[in-house]
């Protein structure tokens, strides 16, 4: 039995579509609650910093602790009821988690190497590095939304850094935090 080129092409498209859908489903199980958590924390921390600049260190330390504990709780609770299982957690989900953990380790290393810098430079560096990771995720999952989001937020960070210095924290609260929260909600609604 022969099949036409059109039928073969349609089958290959189906394979690509299902493969991508499966990988996104695995990723979304872990990614969306984490993005929502960090988006909300980002908005709160930057907004608070804008109004209480003297407490910036305390605000961001609190955010890091709450975020870290929240992340651990989410990962632990999701692992126990994951629909895709092996002896340990799904490898794709684990690779994604490892990627973000490594980024969290490398950013302080880069900052140490680049010092001295101003608070604004430090913040803009962390934001653009995180957006770079978004773009990598987008390329990994062949997801245009994450690539565009990464590029747009990089541009927004640079605009805040060079043009809107007076309201930089407020700008980043709603642009950066809003993007994280928006991505989490988008994944929750569209990738499921």
């Amino acid at each position, binding site marked *: 039995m022969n099949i036409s080129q059109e039928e073969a092409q349609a089958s290959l498209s189906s394979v690509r579509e299902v493969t991508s859908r499966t990988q996104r489903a695995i990723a979304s199980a872990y990614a969306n609650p984490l993005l929502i958590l960090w988006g909300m924390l980002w908005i709160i921390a930057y907004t608070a910093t804008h109004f209480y600049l003297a407490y910036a260190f305390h605000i961001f330390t609190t955010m890091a602790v709450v975020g870290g504990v929240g992340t651990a709780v989410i990962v632990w609770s999701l692992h126990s009821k994951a629909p895709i299982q092996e002896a340990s957690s799904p490898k*794709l989900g684990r690779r994604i988690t490892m990627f973000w953990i490594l980024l969290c380790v490398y950013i302080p290393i880069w900052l140490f190497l680049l010092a001295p810098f101003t608070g604004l430079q430090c913040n803009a560096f962390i934001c653009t590095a995180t957006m770079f990771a978004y773009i990598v995720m987008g390329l990994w999952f062949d997801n245009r939304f994450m690539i565009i989001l990464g590029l747009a937020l990089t541009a927004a960070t640079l605009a805040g850094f060079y043009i809107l210095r007076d309201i930089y924290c407020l700008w980043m609260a709603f642009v950066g935090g809003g993007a994280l929260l928006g991505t989490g909600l988008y994944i929750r609604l569209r990738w499921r």
Partner: protein
Amino acid sequence: MAQLDNIIHQPVRLQIMSSLVSLDQNEHVNFTYLRKLLKLTDGNLGAHLSKLEQASYIKIEKTFVARKPQTFISATGKGRDAFAGHVAALKEIVEGSQTQIETNS
């Protein structure tokens, strides 16, 4: 030259295999989750899984998770090889060559 596989060629079974080979070799997926992911009914998914299991392309395991019975499905090595060969054959056809479907049922 790669060979088409007429068990995998059926559209629903192609989707099932595409999803299962996306997982790592030692991972398996919950039946309910796979059904939702592929937007199939219980009966439809079950029938196609039986066909794939008969060909030894997938492994179906029934187990208990938190005292609830659950069915997990994974692709076997033979299934992964057959799927890879089928996709290679499809690519050859798209690129212009003709391939015969292997009759293996």
